[in-house]
Each structure stands twice: as C-alpha cells, then as structure tokens.
C-alpha cells in the first residue's frame, strides 16, 4: 500500500479515540503546504505527504489543554520534538498518538527561491510542482524548470541521523536505512572567524529583524509564548526599542532557553520572514551540549535531559581542574 494510503488507514483506525489529528495539506499555492486538522474521516482527503511537508507539527501539541487527545503526523526530525516535550513533561504520553513516517528529506523553500532567481524566475509565481526521480519539476511564468532534489533539500536533511520517527504509535511505509553524521562542521567553520567578523555577521543579519516573534512561536520547544519576557512589562527585561541590542538580546535569550532542548528542526529559521539564519545560534549551543554531556535532544525517550538533572560531578566538566 502506498505510504499515504497506509497513513490514512492508520488515522481512520485511531480517529474515534482522538479529538483531532494534525497532518499536512495543500496550501495556497503548489509550493506551499499547510497544517490541516483532521476531525472526521472526510477530512482525510486533505492529507498530503511529500518533500513540501516542511512544518514541524509537534509545535501544536502544547497549544491544547491537557486531556485533549491529539494525533500528530511526524517525520524523523519532528518526532524528536515530541520526545523532548515528553521528557520535559510538557505533554502526556497518554494524550498523544504519534503517526510516524520515514523521510528522505524536505525541500528548503529558500533554496528553491535562490535556484529560481538564478534563472530570473520568482518563487511567488510557481504554477505547478511535481517530484520525479530525485528532482523537483516546476512550471514558472510559462517555463519548465527541473531542480535536482540535492540542490533544494534543507541543510538539516543532509546531516540527518533520524530519517525515521524515533517515537511512534503507528508507522507508515518502510523505514529508511542509513544515516549521516553531524559533527557540527558548519558551526566549527563559523567559529573559525574572528570575534569581530562573527559580530559583524550577526549585526548585518539582525538589522532586518522586525521583532515579529515568528521564530519563537513556530518553535515547538519555546513554550512560554504568551508570557515571554521579551514583551512582558513586569518585569521589563527587554526594552521595546528596535535597536540591534534588543534584537540580538532576544535571540540570545531564545537560544539559551533552548540549549540542550532544541531538536534542530529549523522552524525558527524557516518561519523568519526576513531570512535570518537563526538555527546557527541554536546549533552553536547544541554543539556545546554535545561536547559537555554527550547528548542530542529528543533522541532518547528514557533519558533525562542533562540540563533538567543534577549531578555533583559532571563527567565531562573538570571543575576541580580549572
């Protein structure tokens, strides 16, 4: 049975015990998919699954009151967020049914945009989309364009170790073999620059920030949301000015709150309307967490996250030797 049909059959079977199931459907144009909320069998017609299913739907799990029974469709990377939410007791295992999928990678719309721009074409004018044997075929402004998938796959997919959902109650399709290594080479390369160069890079990037907080609100692990200290006036930690200081300060707060919790789904960066490479900040902290605690967030359901636990002496921190 094709994967999508298998998924639909699984959802149909579990739907009676659930308030709703969150999956992906077709959005406003052929390149944009959008979250869909399935409440009845009839809603299943809306369901799609292909490399345009970019959203990490686990972000919705904390937006419902405890006790609601939710189903969520997840790719490998998304499932890590579910694990992390469970580890942090932000959701209850009995309240969620995880429909896991295998994933060979999702498209980065930014890369598609760049690839089209190279041919003087605009992503906003794509009329049709199809995936054929390792490539993405598009029609834009009367022209046919074929882009190899390798050119448009999200960076996170190139270093993915978790193609299959790491946690699931149902699993559709065949698990994908093989995994890539992620040694944080991109972060190491960035760190190769001088402090001034790095600061200058972030100055340039943050200049564009509109303080819309799409990065925060799209993040499945950024759970303070309505009570975020970036806007609260009591205490008024962050000024409402829109200078670089405030913008960068907010991103620092966001990144440190996610240290060792961020599953690197990249939703912060994808959600940013002005293309600020926010995942780099999160990956920097995760690289430190990996070095210090040998831990990748959301990969081991039974392990207590290192920053939620206390040890008198950390194995990789030589406190006495400083």
């Amino acid at each position, binding site marked *: 049975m094709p994967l999508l049909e298998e998924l639909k059959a699984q959802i149909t079977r579990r739907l009676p015990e659930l308030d709703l199931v969150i999956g992906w459907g077709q959005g406003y144009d052929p390149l944009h998919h959008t979250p869909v909320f399935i409440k009845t069998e009839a809603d299943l017609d809306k369901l799609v699954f292909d490399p345009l299913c970019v959203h990490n739907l686990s972000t919705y799990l904390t937006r419902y009151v405890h006790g609601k029974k939710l189903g969520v469709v997840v790719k490998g990377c998304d499932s890590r967020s579910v694990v992390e939410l469970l580890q942090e007791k932000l959701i209850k295992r009995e309240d969620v049914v995880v429909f896991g999928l295998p994933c060979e990678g999702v498209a980065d719309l930014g890369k598609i945009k760049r690839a089209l721009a190279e041919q003087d074409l605009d992503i906003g004018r794509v009329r049709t989309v199809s995936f054929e044997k390792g490539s993405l075929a598009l029609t834009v402004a009367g022209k046919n364009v074929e882009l190899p998938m390798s050119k448009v796959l999200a960076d996170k997919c190139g270093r993915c170790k978790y193609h299959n959902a790491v946690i699931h109650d149902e699993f559709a399709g065949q698990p994908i073999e093989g995994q890539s290594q992620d040694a944080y080479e991109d972060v190491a390369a960035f760190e190769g620059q001088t402090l001034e160069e790095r600061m200058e890079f972030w100055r340039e990037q943050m200049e564009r920030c509109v303080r819309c907080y799409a990065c925060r609100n799209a993040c499945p692990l950024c759970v303070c949301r309505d009570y975020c200290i970036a806007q609260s006036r009591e205490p008024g930690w962050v000024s409402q000015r829109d200078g670089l200081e405030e913008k960068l300060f907010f991103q620092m707060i966001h990144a440190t709150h996610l240290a060792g919790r961020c599953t690197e789904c990249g939703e912060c960066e994808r959600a940013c309307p002005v*293309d600020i490479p926010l995942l780099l900040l999160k990956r920097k902290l995760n690289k430190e967490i990996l070095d210090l605690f040998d831990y990748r967030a959301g990969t081991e359901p039974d392990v207590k996250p290192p920053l939620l636990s206390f040890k008198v002496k950390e194995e990789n921190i030589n406190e006495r030797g400083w």
Partner: protein
Amino acid sequence: MAAKYLASEKLPAWLAELAASRVVLVPVKERDAVVFRPYSEGVKPVLDRQANVPPKASIFPASESLMSFKYIKNPEDLGQVAVEVHETVDAPPTVVFGGRPCDVRGFNIFDRVYDCPKVQDPYYKARRENTLFVTLACEDAENACFCHWVGSSPSDPVGSDVLLTPIQGGYLVEDVSKRGKALLSSKLLADGSKRSTEAKAVHKAALESLGEVWNPEKAPAKLLEKFDDMGFWEDVSAKCVSCGACTYLCPTCYCFNVTDERSGMKGERIRTWDNCMSYLFTLEASGHNPRPTKAHRLKNRVGHKFSYYPDIHEGIFACCGCGRCIKLCPVSVDIREIVRLAVERPTAKPEKS
C-alpha cells in the same frame, strides 16, 4: 499627467540625483530577503519582485521616540522632583523608491486614522508630509497577490507621487501628485508621451495575471454576524501560531504600543509596532484578557480589516491585498480563505442557555 521616459541605465544616476538632498529608500536584497535601505552609490535596487517588508517604517517606524524626559531633584528639597520633557519629531525628507502600489496604498488607510479632522498625530503627519513615493507598477501577479479584491490594482496610483511602469528599455515615469511633478524635472528623464500605450498594455496584462476577482462586499456584515460563532474562529485559526509576522509585514496594520523606557533619572517615551496576534495586546492591568485565545485574536485581525474599519470608513477595506500575510506566514494562514469562508459558510446560532 506628464509622461516621461527613464532608460534603465540612467536609473542609478536618477537615484543619486534624488539622494543628493534626501534619504532615498530602495528595496535591496539581504540573503534571501528584500528590504528597504537608504540608497548610496553602488546599492543595487531589486525591482523584479515584491519586498518582504513593505516600506511601512518610512512613515510609521517600528520604534520611535515620542519624547525624552528627565527628572530633576530640587537640591533644596529632595522630595520635590521636576520633570523636563523634550518632544522628538524625526522627519527627514525622504523618497521611497520602488515600492509597489499595494505598499503605498496602506498609507491611505493610515491617513484616516492618524491625520483626520478628529485626530492629528504630529509624528505621523510630519513624516507623511516629508515623504514622497515613487512607485513601481507590477508586471505580473504573485500567487498570494489579491489587490484586485480590495479595489486596487497592480498599477493603482493611489498614494503614490510618481508611478513607474516597466516598458521596453526602461520605465515610463508619470507624475501622480503635484509633489511628484517636481521630481520629474530631472534632465535624465526623456519625453515619454508616445509610450503611454505600452505602459497601458503592461497594466492590463498585470491585472489579468491576478485571475478572477472575488468581491468581499458582503464581508463586513457577514464577519459581524460571525462574531459569536467561536466554532468558526477556532476552526480557521487552528493552524495559526499566533506570532506577529502578518501584522508587522502588513502595509495597513497601524496598531502601536507606548512604553516608557527609563533608566535612572532619564528615559524616553517610545511608540512601537504592536500586534493583535499577541496575548499582551489586550491584557488588562486587572489580569483580565478579553481576547484570551488565538481564535479571538485572529477574529479581531480579520474583522478589523474587513468589517470594523470599512464600517466607519466608507466601506474601504483595511487591506491592500499585498499577500505578505499569506506568503510569509510560517504556516500559510490565508486571509482570503477566511474572509471567503466567513461570507459563504452558514453562521452557527449560539445555543440558548
């Protein structure tokens, strides 16, 4: 209306001429985003697509100082404190170049709020008076564009001082306002009177590329009718993540917050963009929040644009159809779909208790 012609290769020279005596904001590319930045030699404007962020900040800055203040203690009597206040109006002469008709149309919606017989906002007014718009007509619609729904078009001159239309080899340059006429005196501009037909064909093709018109005339009444139909609002807001991208990128959203940013004995009173998608937008001092959920908040956003604003402003929608709220929404919430559903879907009657 005078029609002039600007050859593409003369564009940098014209921008330099304009920039000699004022700030000229042009759309430029930064990574994959297009944003407005001051022009200087060597800056390459991006004129083949809509900017991610509209030039809203040229007249309505994301954050502006309304006044600075200082507390001064009386050395004779430390209990006595005087306050010194300086009003700070910052309105340098500016030209916004290369925005789209939808980008500048937004200010007509602002005008009815910030510069009307009842209220005159001095900060807004000063910048409005000092800012000119040289707008670029669109050649082709993007998938999220719907300016034709809200009474506009890809060549709508409303709100512009000069309208540029891309034609073979360059641009047709037409003055729209008296102030715009003054900008046309440049020697770099040639006579364009014989090329108006070419521009008209571009306007027509662009309008046709938008596809069918859907008329939202019933939206004000239908949205009001759905005010208590929370099932409807929960349904259409289910995927919203309640961030503020849609409002901050909207050329017509004008809500603000005022805060005193004080440090020690001095500080500033600033006005910053606020947005109705935020829980804090309506949080009252008592702790009560009349719009506690994202469903309530999205209802306000759509209602404001397509019902409450037109109700008090002669039927004009507080939406310019630029489509940014759709194409830059992290989850593709589509305001067109919500308005259409509000009109077409039957309203649930509230249950009698």
